[in-house]
């Protein structure tokens, strides 16, 4: 019997491809955000609120990932933005190689921001690097105020948190202070944007932050 030392990251194959994605995006001067959240948190709604506010300020494109259908891509297309749909079948996250393929279909020379909407799931997408510049956690009031410590991989790694459906807070047991304490315990300095995609509340502050990030690049 022989012990063969390996010492390799189990997700190494994916990470090598993520490195290729990152290199292509950096070379093209594109900042890419990976939007991660549960189904129904409002990831597509957030993009629908965000894209019109970016018009004439920041040329953007979108990669939409879902298990099935092109419904989200259809919603985004209505804003006149380039969009590529990835269908993952029963796969619960976007692997880096599908993002690499999708890049071939996007006019990289014309865009500055790439928004990648991951499959609705708080766990696996947080595990897999897809070559993004940063992860955006999208969570909604109706999911409860205890999620950051339940899903620490995402909330620890993300560079911003968008809390959607704040207009519903008065109708739920959600306590914003409890949510913020939970979040701060996992990621003390992360910017938090409380918004409502339904009323538009708070969306401007989020968009200004987003534009500020690309300006810094």
């Amino acid at each position, binding site marked *: *019997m*022989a*012990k*063969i*030392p*390996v*010492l*390799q*990251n*189990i*997700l*190494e*194959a*994916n990470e090598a491809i993520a490195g290729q994605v990152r290199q292509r995006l950096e070379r093209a001067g594109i900042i890419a955000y990976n939007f991660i959240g549960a189904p129904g948190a409002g990831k597509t709604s957030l993009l629908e609120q965000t894209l019109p506010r970016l018009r004439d300020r920041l040329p953007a494109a979108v990669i939409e990932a879902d298990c099935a259908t*092109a419904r989200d*891509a*259809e919603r985004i*297309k209505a804003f006149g933005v*380039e*969009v*590529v*749909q*990835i*269908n*993952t*079948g*029963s*796969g*619960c*996250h976007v*692997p880096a190689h*599908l993002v690499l*393929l*999708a890049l071939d*279909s996007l006019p990289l020379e014309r865009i500055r921001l790439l928004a990648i909407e991951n499959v609705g*799931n708080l*766990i*696996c997408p947080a*595990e*897999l690097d897809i070559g993004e510049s940063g992860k955006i956690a999208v969570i909604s009031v109706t999911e409860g105020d205890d999620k950051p*410590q339940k*899903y*620490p*991989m995402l909330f*620890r790694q993300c560079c911003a948190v968008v809390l959607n459906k704040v207009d519903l807070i008065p109708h739920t047991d959600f306590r914003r202070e409890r949510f913020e304490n939970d979040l*701060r*315990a*996992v*990621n*003390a*300095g992360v910017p938090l944007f409380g918004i409502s995609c339904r009323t538009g509340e708070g969306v401007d502050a989020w968009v200004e932050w987003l534009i500020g990030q690309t300006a810094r690049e």
Partner: protein
Amino acid sequence: MFIRAFRRVAGADRSAAFMHEYAIAEALVEQIERVAREHPGCTVRSAVVAIGGLRRIVPDILRFGFEIAAADSAAAGADLVIEHVPIRFRCNGCNAESVVDEAIYLCPACGSGDVTALSGDELMLKSVDIEDGQDSGSPEHP
């Protein structure tokens, strides 16, 4: 403008039931097979993996996923040894080092949230135990 679609093909159906651990099990089997190919004729007895506490992996589910992902591969029937790596961080304020069970990144000594993670996000194949085949004497492992 039309919408271009890409679809994931390989492994899509099997991964439906317990996705999180299964995706990891699949990648793990691929890595073990790579090791096995370097030692023709060998039998894989076991594999040792280190999994950090932040990964929220349930060892039994990973073992179950591994069993299924390994079927018909060089890793079939191999034992999976899972080493737990605790969540550890150092406080940048008071320099204290802490080990925590839950993912709470607040220094227990001074309460600061300005901490640097030292461990906890590991997801690593450490080693593979193989038994050499009769016709493949490896000089490194006699």
